Every structure is written in structure tokens, then in C-alpha cells.
């Protein structure tokens, strides 16, 4: 059974926030402007992004609400009665509740009766896990249509109060901690939605799903992006091992961390997976018309990409497209938000028959995921 993405939707909360306004939203820790903000923002080149918290760090939209809004837009654009949706797959790094799964909460908001649900847990690549499961469900002909959502509310982890509460953490001791501040100036909020069906939409363009693959390298590499530990190599406790959650927070175990030193491995493993797909004949670089890459920033000076050109498998720069710089890095939601705009933007000409290669790497513990779509019209 061939499966198509027949509709998309997205939701970005509040106004577009400029580079110099970000600290007004997330708050200055102990009322002192960050000494790392400008440097990190320059490196990631993100110009505008959105937050689901206001200038007093109060939540304006829950994660469930954002996912629901994206889903509503997607369903409103679809040539399908929502009763036909048999499965709801929802991806997020952290739903509003640790339990139950976020899909339950979103299903309730969408009032979709008696459907099959799936919540995937992870970071950026959780969206691809959800998409693959839904795709397979349709391929197995268990459902005619599935809704796949990805939504992120990272700003709740990044607001100043989180850092101020970490009074005994490495961050507090050193007054500065690159690993906990790095993502503060990288991530923002938003949600995306894809509708999968067993036939293309009767009007307009659909995206046929050709293949979805993923390669995880957690067996070999240490954790690179995480929440739940204090980030000390000799301390194996995780947040639930502390006597109280308050102690875990004080110790910095609830701060979002990125070991920037390990990040270079992500690009390397990304290239390895891509070369593997080329070797297997799954991906043919010369046939890729558009390359949509969720690569969280351009802070690598990585000559490995030039080597790919020398090896004859590079993808020319003019075929790359992203909206990361205007919509922000919304983690798991990024690719869906990107696909939604890709089909509507004037920046790029999309023709029937075009092949779209997507790459979603997750730094968490190095999971690299890839998919290929082909533009079709009924």
C-alpha cells in the first residue's frame, strides 16, 4: 500500500521574536544579561522564533494546545472527513504531563473518537518515529488515514527561573555553564501536523512517502543532549534518585544540557547514514531535487561535506531549503513545520515528480533519520 501526505498544518505561538528580544521572553538569570547569548545566536543564525511563554515566563499555550492547533489546521485543509482518521501519532520531547502519553491529551482536545494512539518519546527524531509507525500502519492497511503531530514547548525548560533554582549546580558554581546555556539560545516552540492517507489528495500536491530509515549510535557514543542528570561524569544519579524533586532541581538535574564537544559526531554519523543509503541504492544523490535538513545550526566548520562533493555524492547548495532561520529550531516539530511551509512558499519551485530528501538528526544519543518523499498530483 502506497501512502501519501495529503495535508499539512503548523502552529507557531505568539509573535515572531527577534534576536535581541529573546532574553526579554526567557528572562535574564538573576537579572544579569547572558554573556554567551550573542555569540551562540550569531553562530546559529536564527533570526526569528516563537515562544509559548510571555515576558513574565507564564505559559500562553500548552504543548497539547499547540499540537491541537496544528492538527486542526491540517484537518481543515484536508479533503477528508475526520471520522476517517484511524490513528493519531504524537511526538514531543516532553508533553505537558509526564504521564499519560501526550497522544491521549491531544486526542481528547481533538475529540477524535476511539482511534488508535501512539506517543513517541525522544527528541528531534521522535517525530520521524511517529511518522514511520503511522506510515507502516497504513501500509498494513489497518487504517485509511492517520494524523501525525509533533510539538515542542522547550521554553518552559529554558526560562530564567529554572537556572535561578539550580543553586547547587555546576551552572551556579561557575556562574556560567556552556552546556546548560547553549540550547537556551537555540530552541523555541511550535507544532506541525501531517495527514497520511492511502491515496493522494483529489486536488493540489501530495507527497508520496518513498522510504523512512533511521540509524541510532547510542551503543557507541555518550549522551549528548539530555534532561535529568546534573552533568557530572562521576555522578550517576538521575532526577528521580534525589530525595525530592526540589533537590534535583537545585543540583541542576532538571536543566536541559548539550555536551557541545560531542556534537561534531552528529554530522559524522549523519554523513555515515547517508552514505549507507547511497551504498544500498536507496538514495540517489543526483535524483534529489530538494534537501530539507533539520540541522540545528551551522556552528560546524566541517570539511566532511566538501569530501562528499569530491566523492560525487554531494547535494548542491541550491537544492537545500530550510525555514529554521525564520521559524526557529523547534526540535521534533521542525521538519513538519518545514514541510508545511515548503509546499506553500514562493522561495522554491515544487514540481510534480520532484524528490524531496529529508534529514532529521537527533543529538540526544545520536539517532539519525532520513526520509524521501515524491511530489505527486492526483
Amino acid at each position: 500500500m502506497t501512502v501519501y501526505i495529503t495535508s499539512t498544518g503548523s502552529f507557531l505561538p505568539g509573535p515572531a521574536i527577534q534576536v535581541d528580544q529573546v532574553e526579554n521572553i526567557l528572562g535574564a538569570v538573576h537579572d544579569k544579561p547572558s554573556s554567551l547569548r550573542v555569540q551562540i545566536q550569531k553562530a546559529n543564525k536564527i533570526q526569528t522564533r516563537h515562544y509559548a511563554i510571555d515576558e513574565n515566563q507564564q505559559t500562553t499555550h500548552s504543548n497539547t494546545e499547540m499540537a491541537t492547533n496544528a492538527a486542526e489546521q491540517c484537518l481543515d485543509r484536508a479533503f477528508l472527513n475526520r471520522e476517517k482518521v484511524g490513528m493519531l501519532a504524537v511526538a514531543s520531547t516532553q508533553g505537558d504531563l509526564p504521564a499519560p502519553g501526550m497522544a491521549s491529551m491531544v486526542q481528547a482536545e481533538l475529540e477524535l473518537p476511539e482511534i488508535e494512539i501512539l506517543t513517541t518519546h525522544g527528541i528531534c527524531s521522535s517525530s520521524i518515529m511517529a511518522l514511520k509507525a503511522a506510515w507502516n500502519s497504513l501500509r498494513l492497511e489497518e487504517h485509511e488515514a492517520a494524523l501525525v503531530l509533533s510539538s515542542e514547548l522547550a521554553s518552559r525548560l529554558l526560562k530564567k527561573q529554572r537556572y535561578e533554582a539550580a543553586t547547587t549546580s555546576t551552572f551556579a558554581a561557575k556562574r556560567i555553564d556552556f552546556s546548560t546555556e547553549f540550547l537556551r539560545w537555540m530552541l523555541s516552540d511550535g507544532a506541525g501536523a501531517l495527514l497520511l492517507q492511502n491515496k493522494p489528495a483529489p486536488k493540489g500536491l501530495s507527497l508520496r512517502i518513498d522510504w523512512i530509515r533511521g540509524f541510532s549510535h547510542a551503543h557507541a557514543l555518550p549522551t549528548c543532549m539530555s534532561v535529568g542528570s546534573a552533568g557530572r561524569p562521576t555522578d550517576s544519579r538521575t532526577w528521580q534518585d534525589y530525595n525530592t524533586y526540589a533537590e534535583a532541581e537545585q543540583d541542576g538535574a532538571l536543566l536541559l544540557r548539550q555536551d557541545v564537544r560531542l556534537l561534531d559526531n552528529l554530522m559524522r554519523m549523519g554523513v555515515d547514514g547517508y552514505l549507507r543509503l547511497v551504498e544500498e541504492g536507496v538514495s540517489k544523490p543526483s535524483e534529489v531535487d530538494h534537501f530539507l535538513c533539520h540541522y540545528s545550526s551551522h556552528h560546524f566548520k566541517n570539511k566532511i561535506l566538501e569530501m562528499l562533493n569530491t566523492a560525487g555524492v554531494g547535494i548542491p547548495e541550491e537544492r537545500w531549503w530550510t525555514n529554521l532561520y525564520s521559524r526557529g529550531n523547534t526540535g521534533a516539530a521542525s521538519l513538519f513545520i518545514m514541510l508545511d511551509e515548503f509546499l506553500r512558499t514562493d522561495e522554491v519551485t515544487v514540481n510534480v515528480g520532484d524528490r524531496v530528501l529529508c534529514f532529521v538528526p537527533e543529538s540526544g544519543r545520536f539517532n539519525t533519520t532520513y526520509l524521501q518523499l515524491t511530489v505527486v498530483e492526483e
Partner: protein
Amino acid sequence: MNNGDISIEGGETAPAEESVPEGVVLNPHAQVCLQHLLRVWLGFERDLSKVPLLRRIDLGTFTVEDHQVFLRNIRQQVIEGSRWITRTASSFDRNHSEIRSTIISHAVDEHRDYEMLEKDYVASGGKLEDILNMERNIGSEALHGFLMHRSSRPNPIDLLGAMWIIEGLGEKMAHSWAERIQELTGLSEDSTRFMTYHGHNDSEHMQRFYATLDSVGVNEEAIASIVKTAKVVARLYRLQLEEIEYDVQ
């Protein structure tokens, strides 16, 4: 490709791969060979992260003693390196005089690198006699044996695969390890000169590598032999780092 050039403090400050000059065009067989070699390298590099001694660099628990252990265990291979390289040169016949010249000049560049390594060892607080007394560890024996065997065969073009791995590691030491080791151990630059010098010297070697790959990687058989030797050397090099002798002999 769309890639920025801003490096961030706390992150890697230099690329671990060598730049490819504008206009390098490899023949189609050599291109496929490079694709395979990249995968062998990336797999090797990832698997090095699992080697206990090296994992401590990633985890931030690497000590001065670890650095000394590393130098003590790698010295034999560095000494033997110049032997298999010169043997390789002598195994090429007159029809391969160009490649023979390239290999000879490479050997000249590196054949006394081990002396630098010994000075690093002393600078890091080790006793010279301790490093001089070290024998090859189990992995070094296997690696050395394999390289001497292959280099003794006529026209051993497959050893380009060995150079790919060993040169790549030189670059990695220079750009990923040396500074991090200094940071973690408090050792100064004069304890990691072998690592940094080796990487610096390697940029030239890389240009020669592409030229040689283009000239010898001309059919499927040649490619298969280069890639296989790269895989074997990657595995045996890792074995050398897994079979670390921790004690002074």
C-alpha cells in the same frame, strides 16, 4: 554545501577533516572508493569512542596517567610505521615510480616522529626508560604483522587504505584530542606535540592522497582491495588501543 564557518568556544575549533582544494575531480571509481573509505573511517571513529581509554576523553575523566599509558602503547606502532611505509615503497615496480616517490617522501617526513613522542612522554612526567622498554602490545603485533605482510607484496596499492586510516587518526589527534587532553589533565603543549605536529603535517599528505587515489583507483578490483585493507587496519588499530598494557614493563 551550506555550512557556516563560525566555531563556538567550548566546541570543536577546527575541522578534523582535511580541506579538499577546489577543482579536485576524481575518476568515477575513485569517487566510489572515497565513499566507501569515508564510511570505513566514520565507523572506525565511532567505534574508537567505545575504547575504554579513549572514552574517558569524551566523558572528561582522562588523566595524566592515561596520557602516559597512551603514549607508551602507541610508540611501537609509530616506530614500525616508517618500516612498513619504506617497505611499501620498495615493493612498487618501475611502472609505479610516481607513487613510489610519493611514498618515499612521506616516509622521510615521518620516520623520526617517535622521538617527538618520547619527548612528550618525558614532558608529561614519565621516565624515558619506561617508554623505551615497552614492547608492542597484542594489537600492535597484529597491526604490524598485517602491514609488513601487505607491504611485502608486489605493487601493494591496497595500502592506500591503511594510509587513509592512519593519516585520518593523525588529524583526529591533532584537532580533537590534543587540546582536550591538555584541558583535562593540565598538561602543557609540550606533552602533546606528537599529536599536534602530526596533524599539522598531514594536510599536505591529504593532497597527495587524493592524487594517488585517482591514479590507482581505476577499477573495481583495486577499489575492493583498498577498502578491505582500510577495514582491516581500522580493526587492528582499534585492537591496539583496546589491548592497552597499563603497566610499565
